[in-house]
């Protein structure tokens, strides 16, 4: 499928949901899709800066990062990975039903996705709470026994900033999905026009992909020791 070429004249009977500056829904959809993907590319580089800094420091301090990583809760992290991938499944199904024009199924799966997202955030909150109680919050109150205290603090700086930024994106995603769910419930979408569901889905899946990389990098360093 290629990007459609402009027609010579705007079609006289314009479809519902078609913006004035587009010729047809096909062009509008192509533009919206490319626009969302380009935004996701900026997110690759936004998170990417953090991954780059993390990579440099982990390469410099492998032992310290391994020891610090063992303090991350592997059970909670694994459960969260399962929860988030599950939410990607429900999101994909929501888009699937949008393609079929099934209004109620769309809303149901969007709600399910949001519930899983909130569950993820709840588990993350519990993790953060444990880290706080262990004095692993970077800053003046940071305490880490052993010879690797300073580089361990560096690890935890990245742990909190990377998972925190990810969590912020999840919150935004849940807000996005709730807006789309309300509009879907009101019948604003059809099997011809459901781009907002699809685009919100792209955002949600992307946040899942970021976690797919965060999980092994932060939780799975040298777990054989």
């Amino acid at each position, binding site marked *: *499928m*290629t*990007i459609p070429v402009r027609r010579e004249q705007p079609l006289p009977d314009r479809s519902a949901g078609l913006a004035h500056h587009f010729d047809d*829904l*096909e062009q509008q*959809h*192509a533009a919206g*899709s*490319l626009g969302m*993907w*380009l935004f*996701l*590319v900026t997110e*690759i*580089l936004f998170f*990417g*800066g953090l*991954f*780059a800094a993390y*990579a*440099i420091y982990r*390469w*410099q301090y492998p032992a310290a990062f391994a020891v610090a990583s063992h303090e991350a809760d*592997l059970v909670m992290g*694994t459960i969260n*990975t*399962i929860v988030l*991938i*599950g939410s*990607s*499944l429900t*999101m*994909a*199904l929501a888009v*699937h039903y949008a*393609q*079929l024009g099934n209004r109620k199924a769309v809303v149901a799966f969007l709600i399910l996705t949001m519930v899983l997202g909130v569950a993820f955030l709840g588990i993350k909150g519990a993790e953060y709470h444990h880290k706080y109680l262990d004095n692993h919050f970077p800053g003046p109150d940071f305490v880490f026994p052993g010879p690797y205290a300073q580089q361990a603090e560096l690890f935890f700086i990245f742990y909190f900033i990377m998972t925190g930024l990810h969590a912020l994106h999840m919150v935004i995603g849940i807000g996005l999905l709730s807006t789309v769910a309300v509009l879907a419930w009101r019948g604003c979408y059809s099997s*011809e026009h459901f*781009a907002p569901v*699809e685009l919100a*889905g*792209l955002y949600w*899946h*992307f946040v*899942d*992909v970021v976690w*797919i*990389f965060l*999980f*092994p*990098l932060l939780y*799975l*360093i*040298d*777990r*054989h*020791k």
Partner: protein
Amino acid sequence: MSEHIVQKKTYFAIFLTLMVLTVTTVWVATIDLGPFNIVAALVIAACKATLVLLIFMHVRYSPRIIALCIFAGILWLALLIGLTLTDYLSRSWIASPPGL
């Protein structure tokens, strides 16, 4: 518009694959592979990400420009990390002249 409608069972199959890969990556981390632990972790993560991109995010059924954009983003991240690493990796190879 992605005219192509992916079947529900495909989505479930991908989900199960992702679950298997998740279990695998946790299990591999408990085995001592030396420097290949990080390689294995990243390869498995890349496989999972690819499945999400191609099927959940419909890249397989989208115009090729989309795949090009994703590839560019990943390439640019690789350039950032790679070229920065050339500095760090080579710092010990030669002592800088005095005054530099």
